[in-house]
Every structure is written in C-alpha cells, then in structure tokens.
C-alpha cells in the first residue's frame, strides 16, 4: 500500500492533503474535502499509529514474552467477549437447573422452606471483563454524582461571597493537588470504622473507590463554579438589584444560567480526573472493576496477560472519551448559548 511510502511524512499535512485529493480525483469538490479532513485524515493517523505500535512492540521482550502488537490485542479482545458470552450461558444454565429442581421439589410436595432455599441460590461465577466495565462506570458515576452534589452548591456559595471565598480558598488549594493514592488508605480506614451494618447496601470496596473518586472530583467543580458565579456580569447584577429580585430568584434566573459554562468546564475536568482516579483506586481497593482487572492480569502473568491489559487500557481510554462526550452533550442541552463552540 502507498501508506508505507508516505508514512514518515504523514504529519506534513499539505502533502497529505494533496495526496488525498489526488487519490479522490476531485480537488475542487468541497464536500469531498470535508470528508477527507474529517474521516480519512484521522484514519490515516490511526493506521500510522498501529504500524508504529506493531513495529515497535516486536522490539520489546518482557518476562511474559514479546510485547503484543495490535493483532494479538484484537484477538484477546474477541476472546474477552467470548468469555463473557460463555459466562452468561453458564449462568443461564445454572438458573435453568435450579428452576428444574424447584419444579421437581414442588411436584414432590417438599416443604415451602426448602423450595425457598433453592430459589434463593445465586450464581457465583467470576465477573467478566464486560461486567467489570459496568462496575467501574457505576462506581465512577456514584463518586462523581456525590462530588457534584457537594461541589456545585458549595461553589455557588463561595462564588457569591468574597468572605467565603477567602475562607475556603486555602483549604481548596491545599487538598486539590493531593493524589488519590494518598486518600485511599484514609478512606479505607474511615469506611471500615463507620460503615457497619449487617445488611450492607454497598460493599466496602465499592464505597472506598467511590469516596476516593469523590474526594478528587470535588475541587475542579468547586473552583470553576465559584469562578463562574463570581464572574457574572455586573450589569446583570445591577438589573437584579433594580428589580429587587429575591435571593432565590436571583440565583435561579441570573447566577446559575450565566455560570453554567464554567460549571460544566469544572464538571468535565472532574469526571476526567474521577475516571483516572478510579482505575488507581480499584487496583488498590480490590473493588471489582477495570483497575482490578488490570491488577489481576498483572499478578496472573500468563502469556495472554499483556494483551489483555492492553485491551483494558484501550477500553479505559475509550470509556473516558465517551464520558467526556456525554458531559458535552449534556452541556449542549442545558446551555442557553447554542452558538457557543464546545469542544
């Protein structure tokens, strides 16, 4: 393919443009040019990346064998999906067996307790990779939502009052740079001390990871919300003074809408940080999830482990991207300025 020839020049865009235009055979067609810029250019870049990866990986030999290239990783990804399907089939088969035994027990006229006991049996197979993606998503959302519920009102209050800003600023600045790994032991100890019930709604490992995410998600939202609120145009504040708007109306009608862009900047930063923090927290807290998957594969050390870890890396990146896009879509929905360019 001609890609190999241009591969080393792929970042020199004018040349690439010309080449693409020549290939498509129509230089003047603007629509086509758009397609070239939007689809073909990124695709070419990905292709180059895959080739570099493939060529580079072969040079590295680890204790677990040669570093896997794209093709091995792809086959492992398929493998993980197959494992997930197999696990689901096993689960279905399990419940089918149980149902049969229940039916038989009823037919035999066994006492109700025994039937209930049979029915209450749960399948206890291991979590598949796909299950773990969803566990991770649930954990990060729990931590993020909790953080936002605290950070947005706090940010609004700090933004509205100079005194509160002065009071909170040093605390925020102190805690903002703290690594999630430093929080985790503290959170773990506090959760084990405080969260004592016989019928736990959440597992402790889930709480540990979610709360660690919360602690790291708070700061960007607080800071950006506060900046947004304090930056409300003086003229609009004057309008509210002339109208003698009450505190509540002023907040809802003027301050919230005008600080929404900054608030969302904070929320998007927070969610991005939260997702990164979560993977680290899951590794250490042994909360089922992508972090634990990576850690388990690392400890497992089979010949497939490296490929499986790479699948996880790509999935983590992709999910993070989807989360950010999701926030962007939400921002577009609630933002009043539909013309604003959001990236």
């Amino acid at each position: 393919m001609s890609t190999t020839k241009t591969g080393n020049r792929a970042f020199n865009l004018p040349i690439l443009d010309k080449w693409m235009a020549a290939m498509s055979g129509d230089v003047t067609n603007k629509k086509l040019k758009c397609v070239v810029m939007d689809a073909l250019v990124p695709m070419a870049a990905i292709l180059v990346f895959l080739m570099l990866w493939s060529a580079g990986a072969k040079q590295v030999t680890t204790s677990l064998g040669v570093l896997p290239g794209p093709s091995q990783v792809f086959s492992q990804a398929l493998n993980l999906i197959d494992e997930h399907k197999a696990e689901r089939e096993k689960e279905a088969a399990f419940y089918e067996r149980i149902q049969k035994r229940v039916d038989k027990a009823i037919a035999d006229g066994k006492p109700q307790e025994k039937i209930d006991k049979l029915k209450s049996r749960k399948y206890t197979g291991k979590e598949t990779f796909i299950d773990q993606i969803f566990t991770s998503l649930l954990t990060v959302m729990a931590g993020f939502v909790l953080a936002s519920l605290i950070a947005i009102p706090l940010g609004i209050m700090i933004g509205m009052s100079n005194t509160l800003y002065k009071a909170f600023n040093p605390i925020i600045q102190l805690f903002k740079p703290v690594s999630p790994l430093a929080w985790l032991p503290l959170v773990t100890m506090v959760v084990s001390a405080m969260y004592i019930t016989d019928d736990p709604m959440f597992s402790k490992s889930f709480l540990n990871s979610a709360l660690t995410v919360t602690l790291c998600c708070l700061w960007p939202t607080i800071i950006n919300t506060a900046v947004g609120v304090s930056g409300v145009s003086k003229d609009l504040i004057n309008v509210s003074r002339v109208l003698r708007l009450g505190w509540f109306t002023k907040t809802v009608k003027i301050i919230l809408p005008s600080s929404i862009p900054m608030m969302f900047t904070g929320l998007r930063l927070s969610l991005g940080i939260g997702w990164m923090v979560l993977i680290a927290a899951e590794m250490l807290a042994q909360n089922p999830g992508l972090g634990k998957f990576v850690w388990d594969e690392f400890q497992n050390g089979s010949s497939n482990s490296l490929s499986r870890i790479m699948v996880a890396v790509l999935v983590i990146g992709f999910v993070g991207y989807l989360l950010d896009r999701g926030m962007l879509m939400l921002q577009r929905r609630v933002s009043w300025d539909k013309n604003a360019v959001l990236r």
Partner: protein
Amino acid sequence: MSEYLNIDHVHMTFPTDNGPLEVLNSINLKVSKGEFISLIGHSGCGKSTVLNIVAGLLNATQGGVLLEDKEVTEPGPDRAVVFQNHSLLPWLTVYDNVRLAVDQVFKKSKSAQERDEWTRHNLELVHMSHALDRKPDEISGGMKQRVGIARALAMDPKVLLMDEPFGALDSLTRTHMQDSLMEIQAELNNTVIMITHDVDEAVLLSDRIIMMTNGPSATVGEILDVDLPRPRDRLGLAEDSTYNHYRAEVVKFLHERHAQPDVPVSKSKEEDKPEKPKLKVAS
C-alpha cells in the same frame, strides 16, 4: 412646579490607590414630573455616577436624592434603568425578559393574565411584538435596546433612567430609536433622565439639557431650557434657527468653555460621536 425629583448637594468621592478622588462636587438638580432631562458632558465627567446615585446603585458620599420627598437609599423598580449595553438576560426570550420584570414588580397587584397582557402591551409600545420568542442573541442591537426600554417601561417607573441608551447603536438605528422614544414619551409622559454624548439627541429629545463640567470634581455647568414645541420633527428642525441656536449653545459649552484639556479645540469639534467613556468609574 413641584419638586418631583430632587438631587440635593450630591458629592461623590471614590477611594483610589492614589488617595480619594472627588468625582462629583455638589450636584443640584430639581426635576418636575413628566420632564425629559439630558445629562451631557465629556467622557469621565461623572454623568453615569449621577445616574447611578439616582438609581440607588451607588450611594452619595454627601447629600442625597429625594423622589416624591422620600430619600433614595437602594435600587428599586420605581427608578427603572435602561443600560447602555441593554443588559438583557441572554438565556431568556424577549417576552421572558420583560415578564421577569413584570412578575417581580406586579406579583401582588396583578393577576397572571394581567401581567401577560401588560408584558405584551409594553413590547407592543416598542414595536417588538413580532419577536416575543426570540433570544437576545437572535435580534439586532437596536431591537435589544427596544426590549431593554420595554423592560424598564414595564416596571411602571416614577423616573426612567437611561444611561447612553443609544450609544452603542449605529447612527441610522439611533435616529429610529430616538423617534420611537419621542413617540412613547408623547404617549406616556414619563419623567426621564438620559445620559448622552450626542448633541443632536440631547436637543431633539429634551426639555432641559444639563451640561456638566469636566471631572474630577464635576458639577452642573449650565442648564439649557429647550423650548421647542412638541411633537418635534427632526427634518423640520434641521433648518430651524431656534433648534440650531440650542445646538450651538451645547457645542460651545462642550468645546469652548469646557473642552477636554488634552484635546485641541479645533480638533474636538468632530468629537460628537458617542463613544464608550474611557474612564467609567461607576460601572
């Protein structure tokens, strides 16, 4: 004439890094009901500060403002302000921007249906009924300012305060807006204080023109009674000798007696063009 609005010995001093700066020195002005007053003066002479003190957005260092013998201490809808940059809430439609003010001012005295009618009526006055559901970003600068005026009128204010309402508009739109304002004024007979940089605008619209001396320590320099019959027609007045006399009076005041010290007199003649004041202490 009764004293409807009384600006009584108002001094204003702002603290700055280089010590206190006296912006206004003993401003005295009595305005009767239904009178249209223009404040004119060079940039930075404290016109906006006077307006903001009447609005209650700023508190005078000394002296005070009485409206119907009650002292002004805080902003309120009885002294509605039309801001230079319209200050509409960009996330609300034209209708909702006015309705917000109507709801706030008449929440007890009018039913929901009356408030709706009053909102529409005021938008009708400024000829904006066709764009009720548009957002401020979707209409032109002149239309935005019309909505700003509708919002102020909808508060049914005792005094309408206008801070260079047409300063940010192009000159064609500005003449349209001036005609509209005269039309509304003829109908409602509001008491208006308007800040302007535009000599023609001041003479055309006002009953009295308050010419302010240069700051710091600005005060009322001269007061010009504009005794032209209403309704006024800009085309007819263009050739009118009385009109041109008034116009010349204001120009002489601004460019001979109180020319800005750093601007040569001959050059400053071209300076009618309204510009956003460079030193805007008040806002």
